[in-house]
């Protein structure tokens, strides 16, 4: 294991972002991904370890002018318990690991770990969320916003630069007609890395589904949006025929692989089953 030469625990965002500009920094949040990855030798420490958990204004959920904002240090437990978190996000939080892990795991850590199976990512894709990336440029903090759907480039890989801190996730606060559901596989609800997860949401009004967004987890190198499924559903009444066609479109959208947890055939089968199940949930609203 590589040695850490310096440990810092800044308490302001600008100090944290400034520290990143010189390079060679490993960011520590809840540590629930970092610790096992270091122990298993799958990654090593940079010379500086920066604990961001002491940065105050990176925690919590707020709503302002139709926008919901979740700080990167907000834990999965806090999301699970918050009235300001949309139901689909709370469902994913409820199916996340164990209580002890949820108490430590942060939203920013889940996104930056960039696992195709990251459970908070799926509902955030359904909510069409963006991430805020902060860096230090010419003596001041600069923040850029990027849509989450363009954030991931491969397993563990994102468009975030090493000098950037993911400070928050933002999305339009869903309106009163918004209905969304999340479903992940596994024999137990928790402590199970998703073999497949599906999230579906949109405005369900007068029996028709609009602004539909569909997301799949653990079915490809990154979490992804289901474009064919969305096109199939947009503006439709959720009849048995539409639901059936959408479940098949979902199988075209997702290209799962064989791995130690499940075969491609099984994953493809689950995608159709979950898509159908979630659409039936929406219809019953």
């Amino acid at each position, binding site marked *: *294991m590589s*040695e*850490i*030469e*310096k*440990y810092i*625990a800044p308490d302001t965002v600008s100090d944290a972002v400034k520290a990143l500009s010189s390079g060679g920094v490993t960011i*520590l949040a*809840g*540590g*629930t991904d970092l*610790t*096992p990855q*270091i*122990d298993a030798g799958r990654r090593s*420490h940079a010379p500086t*370890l920066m*604990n961001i*958990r002491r940065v105050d204004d990176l925690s919590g959920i707020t709503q302002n002018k139709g926008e919901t904002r979740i700080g990167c240090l907000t834990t999965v*437990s806090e999301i699970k318990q918050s009235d300001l978190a949309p139901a689909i996000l709370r469902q994913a939080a409820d199916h996340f*690991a*164990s*209580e*002890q*892990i949820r*108490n*430590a795991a942060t939203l920013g850590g889940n996104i930056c770990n960039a696992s195709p199976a990251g459970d908070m990512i799926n509902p955030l894709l359904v909510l069409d969320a963006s991430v805020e990336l902060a860096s230090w440029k010419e003596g001041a903090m600069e923040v850029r916003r990027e849509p989450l759907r363009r954030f991931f480039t491969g397993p563990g890989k994102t468009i975030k630069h090493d000098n950037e801190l993911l400070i928050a996730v933002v999305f339009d606060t869903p309106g009163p007609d918004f209905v969304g559901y999340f479903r992940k596989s596994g024999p*137990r*609800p*928790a*402590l199970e890395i998703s073999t497949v997860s599906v999230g579906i949401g949109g405005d369900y009004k007068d029996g028709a589904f609009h602004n539909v967004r569909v997301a799949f987890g653990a079915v490809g190198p990154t979490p992804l949006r289901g474009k064919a499924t969305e096109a199939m559903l947009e503006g439709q009444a959720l009849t048995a025929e539409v639901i059936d066609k959408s479940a098949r479109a979902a199988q075209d959208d997702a290209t799962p692989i064989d791995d130690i947890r499940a075969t491609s055939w099984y994953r493809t089968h689950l995608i159709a089953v979950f898509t159908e199940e979630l659409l039936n949930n929406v219809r019953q609203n």
Partner: protein
Amino acid sequence: MSVKTELNFTLNGRPVNIEVPVDMTVLNLLRDVLDLKGTKYACGEGECGACTIEVDGTTINSCLMYAADLNGRTVMTIEGLGAGNKMHPMQQSFVDHGAVQCGFCMPGMIIQANYLVKQNPDLTREEMKRGLEGNICRCTGYTKVLDAVAAIVGAEG
């Protein structure tokens, strides 16, 4: 060895001042440096809950937490749950219900059960099961564990 950092935190009601390597886990600090062997090491990767402790009033897996992050925090381990040699009611209830076999999972199980009841004094059996999902026991089959926690909830509710 990695650089050290100075920590000041409260452990089971007492102040601790100590220097630790920044890549040390809280579990290693407790067991190997502070000689508190109640908190157990089993999987070392967040799956089993044997290492569960309370930090600032919420439970976490101490095998995943960096000791460096304890600075300024308040920690309770199984050693701090009862009062001296007097067992905490949750511990007594586990004894009374025969909920302990080899005992290896129990410090984590009892810390987690106690936390759940503090969070929600009207805990249902279903909520107990969900809340204890991160605590794996190879011996008991869980039924008597749930009985022990249910007795406490009944007593308080």
